[in-house]
């Protein structure tokens, strides 16, 4: 317990020292600490979820977290860095919560922490609004309109999943914030609309079938021909583009690619999210100012989609940017598990392909596959030397060795049977004929010679040519 205690104490020490003036403010908002626990139930969801979070964060990960080395690193970073760093802050929060659970309740430290966070939130809010809020309309929206408590809740929890994404300068994490090329005066609501477009685009894409069709769609704005000055160009950094999700649940931190999906998800968190208003696309009509068209530039230098390219062709939406960047400038790391040949850099492409993989079974010798047989045959009819390619089959039919084994067995069996014939055979005749085991030449199972030794009464008058070897070996040759 010793290091643990020390750690938590240390952890608390830093933020509280930097935010000394806050506790009073907090205490004003939450007048009595004794009430706190009681109020919690009546308070907003974020408070209850504080509890939840604390409970959730207790199990193993945090036990490990408490180990000396890791926590030391954490501590040092907290000490050295500015307190703005979200992830560390988050870690601190967790730490704090855990300590608050495991250790004695320390309201002062808690308050300190809360007020510190509030400050942080305001800071963040400003930053977000002024920068790439467009990426996170929902979060931003909440940030700009929600009550401080809500913000507190939001920030306490989602960042764990969202730290890669939240457009926020982060120190040491390697990801940079979106840097708008030209600062726009557009409102948050405009950007929300913009995101709606993206969302619906995503849905379309989901429906589109062929991989190349998708690509065509990406290029579909080529013919748009917007005059160069008529739109704003945004260029996201590649790290931003490659971040997995853009919409995050403010309660549980689950990430989504589409805001619509997030809204559907939110319904599971409480009745207040089931209202039509919450489900509707956010703030569609709230914008009265003219929409400024936004277009995007690919950060890859030399790319046609890069704004510095001579024949620059902008990308319509962020999703276009993401898909374009992954498809064009990234490794294709998703490999189809069915065919093991097709590779994709966009997971959706892989999924679309997998839906049809194996259906392209019509294969030409040139390697081209076709989803329809008539297309393949049209192709073959057209080109000289191309031929349908047939997948190898297993050889069928009994193998010879197996055949022979059977033969041996069967003849063994029959060899064990004694064939006794009636009185037809004369005095000296063999009454018992044993079928010899001779798998190589079934014809010899029953050699004519053995009949020669039999004396079949009354048939001496027929001339009986001797069955010499040559005769019997020819006998099978001729067939009229």
């Amino acid at each position, binding site marked *: 317990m010793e290091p643990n205690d020390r750690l938590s104490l240390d952890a608390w020490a830093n933020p509280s020292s930097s935010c000394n003036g806050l506790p009073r403010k907090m205490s004003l908002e939450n007048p009595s600490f004794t009430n706190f626990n009681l109020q919690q139930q009546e308070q907003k969801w974020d408070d209850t979820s504080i509890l939840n979070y604390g409970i959730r964060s207790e199990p193993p990960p945090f036990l490990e977290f408490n180990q000396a080395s890791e926590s030391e690193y954490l501590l040092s970073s907290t000490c050295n860095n500015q307190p703005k760093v979200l992830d560390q802050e988050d870690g601190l929060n967790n730490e704090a919560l855990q300590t608050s659970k495991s250790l004695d309740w320390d309201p002062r430290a808690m308050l300190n922490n809360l007020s510190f966070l509030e400050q942080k939130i305001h800071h963040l809010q400003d930053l977000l609004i002024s920068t790439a809020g467009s990426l996170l309309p929902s979060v931003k929206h909440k940030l700009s309109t929600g009550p401080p408590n809500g913000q507190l809740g939001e920030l306490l929890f989602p960042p764990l999943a969202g730290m890669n994404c939240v457009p926020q300068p982060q120190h040491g994490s390697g990801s940079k914030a979106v840097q708008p090329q030209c600062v726009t005066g557009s409102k948050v609501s405009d950007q929300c609309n913009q995101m709606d477009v993206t969302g619906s685009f995503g849905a379309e894409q989901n429906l589109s079938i062929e991989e190349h069709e998708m690509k065509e769609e990406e290029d579909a704005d080529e013919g748009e021909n917007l005059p160069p000055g008529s739109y704003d160009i945004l260029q996201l950094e590649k790290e931003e583009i490659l971040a997995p999700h853009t919409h995050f649940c403010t309660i549980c931190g689950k990430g989504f690619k589409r805001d619509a999906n997030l809204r559907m998800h939110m319904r599971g968190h409480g009745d207040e999210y089931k209202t039509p208003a919450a489900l509707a696309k956010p703030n569609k009509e709230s914008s009265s100012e003219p929409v400024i068209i936004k277009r995007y530039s690919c950060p890859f230098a030399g790319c046609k989609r890069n704004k510095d390219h001579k024949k620059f062709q902008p990308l319509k939406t962020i999703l276009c940017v993401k898909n374009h960047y992954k498809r064009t400038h990234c490794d294709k790391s998703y490999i189809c598990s069915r065919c093991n040949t097709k590779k994709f850099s966009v997971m959706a492409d892989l999924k679309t392909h997998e839906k049809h993989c194996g259906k392209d079974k019509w294969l030409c010798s040139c390697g081209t596959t076709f989803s329809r*047989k008539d297309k393949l045959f049209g192709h073959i009819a057209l080109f000289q030397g191309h031929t349908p390619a047939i997948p190898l089959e297993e050889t069928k039919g009994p193998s010879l060795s197996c055949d022979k084994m059977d033969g041996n067995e069967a003849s063994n069996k029959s060899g064990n049977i004694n064939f006794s014939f009636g009185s037809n055979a004369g005095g000296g005749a063999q009454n018992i004929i044993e079928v010899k085991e001779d798998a190589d030449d079934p014809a010899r199972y029953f050699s004519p010679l053995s009949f020669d030794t039999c004396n079949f009464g009354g048939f001496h008058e027929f001339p009986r040519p001797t069955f010499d070897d040559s005769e019997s070996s020819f006998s099978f040759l*001729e067939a009229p």
Partner: protein
Amino acid sequence: MKRQKTSETNANNGNLFDLLSEEIVFTILDFIDTNPLDRKSFSLVCKSFYITESKHRKNLTPLRQEHLPRILNRYPHVNHLDLSLCPRINDNSLNVISNTCKDSLNSIDLSKSRFFSYNGLMSLALNCKNLVSIDLSNATELRDSAAAAVAEAKNLERLWLGRCKLITDMGIGCIAVGCKKLRLISLKWCISVSDLGVGLIAVKCKEIRSLDLSYLPITNKCLPSILKLQHLEDIVLEGCFGIDDDSLAALKHGCQSMKALDISSCQHISHVGLSSLISGAGSLQQLTLAYACPVTLALANSLNRLSMLQSVKLDGCAVTSAGLTAIGNWCISLSELSLSKCLGVTDEGLSSLVTKNKDLKKLDITCCRKITGVSIAYITNSCTNLTSLRMESCTLVPSEAFVLIGQRCQFLEELDLTDNEIDDEGLKSISRCSNLSSLKLGICLNISDEGLSHVGMKCTKLTELDLYRSAGISDMGIIAISRGCPGLEMINMSYCVDITDRSLLSLSKCSRLNTFESRGCPLITSLGLAAIAVGCRQLVKLDIKKCHNIGDAAMLPLAHFSQNLRQITVSYSSVTDLGLLALASISCLQSMTVLHLKGLTPSGLAAAVLACGGLTKVKLHLYFKSLLPQRLFEHLEARGCVFEWRDKEFQAELDPKCYKLQWEDIAQ
């Protein structure tokens, strides 16, 4: 003949044949090709003959696959290999063949073989570059990969794939691309092949002459490209139910080079579709419309333009008199007409048709039950050049009409009078047809030995005689036949109950006899059959069902002498284990029907079927199935033998005289 030659050689005490060049000996050998036994005797004369014969032989029909390496070494110049008697050809055999024959092989028949796969075919295609002909019919287990192997045979010209049910368009596509020189391809019953495969054949194989697409699920889509084939002469579309008038109507022109067209059983093609199919096909010679559209005036008129037409087959079609009359009014004279089983053939229609077609050579009016003596009078009056007349079951034709046939159609070579009212007078008249080679008199209850004796005396070229259930025939008639017709090859005297061993003894002089059927002749014994066995060494098919007096004593000589016997039916006879085992030593024997043999034990049967290595079909009573180990049957089936199980009760024979009456009762 060979013996004489040999003795002369020896008499002169010198090898005169040594003085002859190999080519001359080959020419001599060419002349003794008719009977395989002669060639065998020739090769057995001496070593040099043996070698000469080995070099000369081009065709080989082996009976057992086990001996293939040896015989292929013996006959290095074989170019046609018929493996239809080897049911057990597997990949190893094909490997041996391809490695031994190499480029000399140009034709192979695998139509009755199973057990081989694409591996063997691939080896064949790669090693035998000169292969031009492959018969893969009945290879029901071959898949597209096998077809792809066949496609490696780039020089292939003829390919039969009948009943290769698992080969699909993909395999056919490979063949179409690989075998550009194809002239003939038969895809009958390849039910997995559709328009695409056939269309690709037509696109890629421009040399196609003959195309058999029977019973394929094809539609009109492949027809345009087929009809564009420059050299197509023979096309069979039998049972292509997917082709209909509507689609045919869209065809602009038919195939100019087409000579033979078969749209039998195409129910959806009427005269409208047919006329568009044959439009432009001015050189069409042969048209087969069996079981297809009704033969009406409209159809006849639509075919009017075919000036080269020689042969028309309308079997099983509904026929109107007007239609037949219109066919008669075509400006051409047909040489062959078949109206077998046509409904609606009347004296009126048929007579007006035959009066115009005076050059008719072959006429088939089987089961045209409405025609009477009037038609026969017209036929015999105008078609005096008839060589073939088939008129089974023309029951209304009176006995006098058959006299006319003998009087007027003296060039007849083939005459089928099964189930007719012909009597001895008629037979006497018919005996004038001195070229007669095939005569069928089954179920002719009015004929007797007297009439048959006339045939025996005059029709010396007779090779085929069917007397099935012609109960009036006895030894006298048969003796007359066997004396007068030494070239007899096939005789059926089933249920001629009066036949005795005397007939058989005299028939044993007909050394070319290869098919002998004497079912239900209770009087013949082992002795008679033994004489047949000794005299008729070329016997291939033997049916002695219900000959109760034939037993093992006949089987033993059969086993010795009838080394060409392929098919035997010994049901209801007195053959026992011993006889069956003796038969098993005939290496050619392929089919055996063994039902209701009292003296047959399970172990005897097992020994016989095991010993008879070439068996492909055995018909047995179900009773034995439980008595013999399953492993035995499995083993035999793996060798290529198929078992057919029968569960018939033992049947006592009916009175032959009342057979026909009973049959008529059933018919009514």
